[in-house]
């Protein structure tokens, strides 16, 4: 049963991700991105990570993608062919990535296996308790320093955005 769900979610994620870059209408691209976010959230639920699934939808689908749509609609680009003539560059970028993934899947099989085993045995203990509680505890004990650094980086980005948007800050002072 869980294999079936995984197959469905993974397949839909692949298809909709391709559609995001392949569709010519940017609004349709944004919508397939929305469908993809949903299926990623579904994948989190099959892994018993309900908190991550909810956050995935609230943050990405609820906030970020709405802003994308906002920009797309204000610019009113119904059909823009400029970005669809770049498939040569895309191909050049894709070939090394494709070879890399092939190498990872075939040659490094042993290393990947041990990695996945440790990943699966790790969260088993956490699933038994409250998933949200487990994430909170780990985030504020083991990973407290990276968490604080990340919040500092976001604060810098926020201040930067305000400075860029409010060009009259410097002028008013002089």
């Amino acid at each position, binding site marked *: 049963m869980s294999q079936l769900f995984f197959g469905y979610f993974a397949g839909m994620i692949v298809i909709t991700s391709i559609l995001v870059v392949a569709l010519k209408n940017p*609004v349709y691209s944004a919508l397939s991105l929305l469908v993809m976010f949903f299926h990623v959230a579904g994948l989190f639920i099959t892994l018993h990570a309900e908190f991550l699934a909810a956050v995935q939808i609230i943050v990405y689908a*609820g906030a970020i993608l709405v802003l994308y*749509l906002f920009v797309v609609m204000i610019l009113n680009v119904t059909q823009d062919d400029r970005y669809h003539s770049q498939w040569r560059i895309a191909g050049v970028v894709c070939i090394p990535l494709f070879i890399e993934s092939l190498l990872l899947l075939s040659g490094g099989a042993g290393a990947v296996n041990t990695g996945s085993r440790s990943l699966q045995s790790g969260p088993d203990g956490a699933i038994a308790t409250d998933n949200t509680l487990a994430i909170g505890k780990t985030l504020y004990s083991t990973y407290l320093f990276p968490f604080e650094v990340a919040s500092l980086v976001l604060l810098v980005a926020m201040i930067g955005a305000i400075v860029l948007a409010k060009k009259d800050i410097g002028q008013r002072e002089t």
Partner: protein
Amino acid sequence: MTEFGLRLAISLTQIAAVMGIVVITVLILTLAERKVLGWMQDRMGPMEVGPYGILQPFADAIKLFFKEDIIPAGANKFLFTMAPILCLIPAFIGFAVIPWGPNQTFEVGGITVRPFVISDINIGILYVLAFASLGAYGIILGGWASNSKYSLLGGLRSAAQIISYELNVGLSIVGVLILGGSLSLVKITDAQAGGFWHWYVFALPAPQIFALVVYVISSVAETNRVPFDLPEAESELVAGFFTEYSGLRFAFFFLAEYANMVLVSCVAAALFLGGWNAPYPGTIMAFIGLPSLAWAENTMWFAVKTYSFLFLFFWLRATLPRLRYDQLMRFGWKVLLPIALGNIVVTALAVFFFQ
């Protein structure tokens, strides 16, 4: 397999019952809104259809069914058709985690059934927030697909408004989550049992009264109601994002707006006012020796609380003029957001020191 079938049948029955109740509530609300507005403006409201106008919702529904369905020229047909459905589904799906009555269970064929909540998932409130934020898609896409300037502007306004006020809704309930120690609406409601002084609006050590005010104001804005109904401001935008919609598709938007109102009222009642708990300890039914009927009393209290919030929506509509767009944004970001953040700090400190 029979167990799975039985489980599915029970779930479907519960879903059908909840959907039915919500749709009936929406029907009542359409009439109640016009009646309440009428009384507040010293007139009678609808009086023609049926005794005292109580059949007006059915007349409205029949009219909407038989209206001509127009798709404007140049509209994106696919998205124009999808948008009302995209608006309606998130509005209804959130009801799955709302506890309507006491957290009791009974057994049917070896399966434990919870009659008053469809699903008690451990991220209940986040689930409601996640789907509430998706309602914006229906509105923006409807506005964009209509191929009309008014619709587009209404849709974009609504997007900005919903994103801004969603943040305040999310932050205002964090205090309750700190006090309750859970994200499940069932657990939060259970923790408020035993009299109104245990409700999180009044509960020591950190009364959430400011959080409730922020939540109510933000949810009025999130459901696009007066005084925050800029996405459909008729003096500037004709009818906003649904200018071009008619017939059944318009009815879907209408239904979604009212279902959202019911949903935010239910969440407010469950989080801040103790949900189905009576304002006194225990229940009268248990006191007079009928504990098996206590659920009726509890469900009634939940309905009373929800309807009080719905009445507040109508009251605001009759009282307040519409805000200007910049006022709306300034109010959301510079007044409500600091209050919500301050509430989180105060609540966290109070819980840390006194609990």
